C-alpha cells in the first residue's frame, strides 16, 4: 500500500516538474529571442595567430643593450646611482606600450576587411570570366559589405547586373560607384549602356559625353554616342510627347542644350551691359587676348607631354595681333552649329594645356572619328617619355599612317626600351612594324635597323616575338633585307636580330 502511494506521488511529482520545466522553457524562448535581436554589437576578439603562421608572425623583440653594470667596489658610481629612476624603469618594462597595440589592431582589422574584400572581388572576377553572373554578384555583395567605399566593387556588380539584364539594378550600382568616384569611366560607360537599354537615351548620351570629356580618345564611347544620337533622331519625332523616362536633374541642362542644337531656333538672351571690372577682366575694347586661368582636376588634364612655350615680354601699351587660334576656334564652332555654352567652356578650359591640342581635340570630338581627321604636323609633335603618352598619341593617330610614321620618327630609338618598359603589346608592335616598313625612308635617327633593335630590347620581348603574325614576319624579313642593303648593317647584327625575332 505504501509502495502504491509512493509511485503515485512520484508520478505526480514528475508531471509537476515537467510542467515547471515547460514554463521555464517558454520563458527562455522569449528571452532568447529578445537577446538575439539585441545581438548586433561590434564584436572583437584577440585571437592567437593561425597555427602555420605562428613562427612567421612572432613579434620582433627589441634587443636591449645590457647597461654597464656598476662593479660593487665602485663606491663613487654607486653614490650617483638613482634608485627611484631604476625602479621606475623596471615598472615600465612590465606595462609595455599598450596604447600602440590597440591602434594596431584597429588598422589590422581594416586591412583584413580590405584583403577579404579584394579576395571576394577576385573570385567575382573569375566568375565573370566564366559568365557566372549570379555567383559573381554574390561575391561582389560580400566585398561591398566588407568595404563600402570602393567604387570598383559597385561597378563590377553593375556589369553583372547589366549582363543579367537587370538594368535598373545595374544603373543603381553604377550611380553608386560614380558617387564614390565621379571620374570612373567604366562605371559611366556601363551606366550609359544600362540607360540606353532602358530607353533613357538622353541620360545615356549625357553619360557618354562625360566619358568623352574624361577620355577624349575613347572610340567605343564615341561609337555608342553616335548610335544613340541616330536612335534619338529617329525616335525623337515619334516619342516626343511621351518620353520614356523623366530626365533627372543632372540631365536637364544637357537636354536643353540638345533640343537647341536640334532646332536651329536660337533664343536671344537680353544683352547685359558688363561692368567696368568685367570689361577689364574680359579685355573688352583692348586689342589683346586674355588667357584665363584654368582649374582642372589632375585626371582631366591632358596626358600629353607638356610643351615648352617661350614667353615674350611685351612693353606696356604695345599689343600683339590676335593669335590665329581664336579664329580656328570660331571656325570650328561655326561648323558644328553646336554653340551651347557648356561646349565653349570646355574649349576654353582646354586652351590652358596645349594650344595645338585644342584644335585636334575639338575636331576629334565633333567630327566623325577615324581616317581623315586632322593631325598635327611633325614639328608640333612631342616625343613621349612613357608608354601611356605614346599609346594615347598612337591611338589618336589611328588611320593616319603618315602621321604615325612622323610620330615614330621623332622618337629616339635608344629610348624606346625605356619608354615602353614592359607595356608593349603585340598588336601595337604589329602596327609599329607596319609603319616602320611602309615609311622606312623616313627614319633618319639610326634607320630602320636601329628601331628593330630597339624593339627587340624592350622587356619581355621574347614573349611578344612568339605572337608575331606571318605578315609581321614577312615585313621584318623585308626590312632586314633593306637594312642590309641600304643601311649597311653587318651580317652579325642581322643574324642577331633574326635570332631575337625568332626566325
Amino acid at each position, binding site marked *: 500500500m505504501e509502495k502504491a502511494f509512493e509511485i503515485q506521488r512520484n508520478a505526480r511529482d514528475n508531471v509537476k*516538474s515537467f510542467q515547471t520545466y515547460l514554463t521555464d*522553457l517558454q520563458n527562455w*524562448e522569449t528571452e532568447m529571442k529578445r537577446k538575439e535581436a539585441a545581438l548586433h554589437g561590434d564584436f572583437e576578439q584577440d585571437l592567437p595567430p593561425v597555427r602555420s603562421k605562428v613562427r612567421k608572425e612572432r613579434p620582433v623583440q627589441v634587443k636591449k643593450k645590457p647597461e654597464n653594470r656598476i662593479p660593487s667596489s665602485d663606491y663613487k658610481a654607486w653614490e650617483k646611482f638613482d634608485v627611484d629612476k631604476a625602479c621606475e624603469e623596471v615598472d615600465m618594462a612590465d606595462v609595455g606600450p599598450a596604447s600602440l597595440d590597440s591602434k594596431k589592431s584597429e588598422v589590422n582589422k581594416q586591412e583584413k576587411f580590405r584583403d577579404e574584400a579584394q579576395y571576394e572581388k577576385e573570385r567575382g572576377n573569375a566568375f565573370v570570366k566564366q559568365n557566372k553572373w549570379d555567383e559573381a554578384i554574390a561575391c561582389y555583395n560580400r566585398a561591398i559589405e566588407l568595404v563600402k567605399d570602393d567604387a570598383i566593387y559597385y561597378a563590377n556588380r553593375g556589369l553583372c547586373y547589366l549582363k543579367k539584364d537587370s538594368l535598373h539594378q545595374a544603373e543603381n550600382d553604377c550611380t553608386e560607384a560614380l558617387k564614390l568616384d565621379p571620374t570612373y569611366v567604366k562605371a559611366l560607360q556601363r551606366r550609359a549602356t544600362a540607360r540606353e537599354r532602358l530607353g533613357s537615351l538622353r541620360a545615356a548620351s549625357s553619360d557618354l559625353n562625360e566619358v568623352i570629356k574624361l577620355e577624349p580618345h575613347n572610340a567605343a564611347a564615341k561609337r555608342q554616342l553616335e548610335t544613340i544620337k541616330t536612335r534619338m533622331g529617329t525616335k525623337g519625332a515619334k516619342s516626343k510627347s511621351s518620353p520614356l523616362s523623366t530626365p533627372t536633374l543632372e540631365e536637364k541642362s544637357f537636354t536643353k542644350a540638345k533640343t537647341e542644337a536640334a532646332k536651329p531656333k536660337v533664343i536671344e538672351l537680353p544683352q547685359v551691359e558688363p561692368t567696368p571690372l568685367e570689361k577689364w577682366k574680359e579685355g573688352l575694347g583692348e586689342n589683346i587676348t586674355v588667357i584665363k586661368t584654368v582649374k582642372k582636376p589632375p585626371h582631366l588634364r591632358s596626358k600629353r607631354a607638356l610643351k615648352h612655350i617661350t614667353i615674350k615680354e611685351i612693353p606696356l601699351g604695345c599689343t600683339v595681333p590676335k593669335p590665329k587660334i581664336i579664329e580656328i576656334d570660331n571656325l570650328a564652332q561655326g561648323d558644328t552649329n553646336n554653340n551651347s555654352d557648356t561646349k565653349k567652356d570646355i574649349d576654353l578650359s582646354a586652351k590652358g594645356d596645349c594650344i595645338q591640342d585644342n584644335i585636334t581635340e575639338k575636331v576629334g570630338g565633333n567630327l566623325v572619328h577615324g581616317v581623315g581627321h586632322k593631325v598635327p604636323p611633325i614639328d608640333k609633335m612631342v616625343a613621349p617619355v612613357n608608354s601611356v603618352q605614346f599609346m594615347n598619341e598612337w591611338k589618336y593617330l589611328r588611320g593616319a599612317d603618315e602621321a604615325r610614321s612622323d610620330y615614330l620618327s621623332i622618337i629616339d630609338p635608344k629610348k624606346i626600351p625605356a619608354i615602353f618598359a614592359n607595356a608593349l603589346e603585340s598588336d601595337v608592335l604589329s602596327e609599329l612594324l607596319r609603319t616602320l616598313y611602309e615609311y622606312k625612308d623616313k627614319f633618319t635617327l639610326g634607320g630602320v635597323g636601329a628601331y628593330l633593335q630597339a624593339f627587340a630590347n624592350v622587356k619581355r620581348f621574347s614573349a611578344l616575338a612568339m605572337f608575331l603574325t606571318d605578315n609581321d614576319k614577312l615585313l621584318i624579313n623585308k626590312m632586314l633585307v633593306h637594312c642590309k642593303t641600304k643601311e649597311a648593317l653587318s651580317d652579325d647584327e642581322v643574324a642577331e636580330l633574326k635570332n631575337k625575332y625568332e626566325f
Partner: protein
Amino acid sequence: MENQDTPQIITHIEHNLNHSLFDCKWIPCSAKFVVIGCLPKGSGTIEIFEITSGEINKIKEIERPNSYKCGTFGASSDIERRLATGDFKGTLEIWDLEKTCQVYITKEHTDIINSIDGIGGNTFNCGAPELVTGSRDGTVKVWDPRQRGKPVANMQPMKGEIKRDCWAVAFGNSFNDAERIVVAGYDNGDLKMFDLRTMSLRWECNLRNGVCSTEFDRKDIPMNKLVATTLEGKFHVFDIRTQNPTKGFAQVLDNSTKSGTIWVSRHLPQNRDIFVTCAGNGQVSLWKYEYPEQRFHVDGHGVAVGVPGKLNRLQRMVISSQPINALDWNKDHLGLAVATAYDQYVRVIVTTKLNLH
C-alpha cells in the same frame, strides 16, 4: 529503482521531415537549431527551425547539389554564428546563415567528411578558431577559417599504410593558447590522439570495434575524460588526466546494453560528468561518471597509474524506432536537446531534474 531525483527524458516536440537527417546543432544564443540532411534525390539540405511554445517552425531552408553530412558552430563566435559543414564530396564550407551564403569553401578531402568539430569561437574558449574534419580518405585535417584553402594541420597515414575511414573527430585540452588535442576514431577501432602543439601522435589504442563517436567531457580544460562509442553497443570512458607511459589511460567499458551501435555520445554542457548515449535501437541513455576516491595511484616503479571510476545509468528511454544519429545539448538551457534519427524525425528532448545531480 526510480527515486525522486531520477531525471525524466521526454520527447517535447516531434517533427517529421520526410528525408534523411544526419546532424543537428543548436544555433548559439537562440532558440533555433539547424538540421543537416539529404533529400532522396541526393541533394543536401540545411534547415533552420525555431521552437515556439511547443512547436517547431521552419525558418529557412538551403538546398545544394551535394549532400551534407555534418556541421558545427564550434569555431564561430556566438555573434557571427557561422555553421561549418562537411559534405559527401569532401567539401568544407562555412556558412553565413543569415545571408545564406558560404564565406569559406575548400575541397581538400577526396571523400566524404564523416565528422567535424570546431573550437575557439567563443571568448571563453582559448586559442585560435579551428575546425577539424575526419574523412573517408583517411585524413584528419585541421583548419583555421582565417587561412583560406589549405589546412593548418593534416594527419594522414604514412605512405604504404592502409587508409582507414575516419568516423569521428573531436577537439580537447585547449586550456591555453598553445595546447590543443585532436582525437580521431577510425572504422577499424583505432583511436588516435594528436597533439597539435607538438604536432605529434600522443597516444593511440584499438577499441576492437569501429569508433562511431568520440568527445571530451570539456574542450577548454586540461583534458579530463574522453568518451568513445563503438559498434555493437559498447562505449569506453577514459580518464585522461593521468597517462601512464606503458598502460596509457585508465578506462571503463560499458557493454551491458544490447542496443546495437552507439551512434553518438554527448556530454551535458552544464555538468561534465553527465553524458548521454544514443543507440541504434532508438534508445537514449543518461549516464553519470562517478570518480574513484583516488584518481591515480603510484605503482611499484614510482609511476602514476590512473584509476577508472564507475558508470551509473541515471535514465534510459526509447524515443525512436530507428537509430538516433545525432544529438546536441543546448548550451543555454539545462536539459534541452535536439536529436535526429534515421526515422526522419527531428525531436526536441527535455530532461528534467538534471540540476539535482
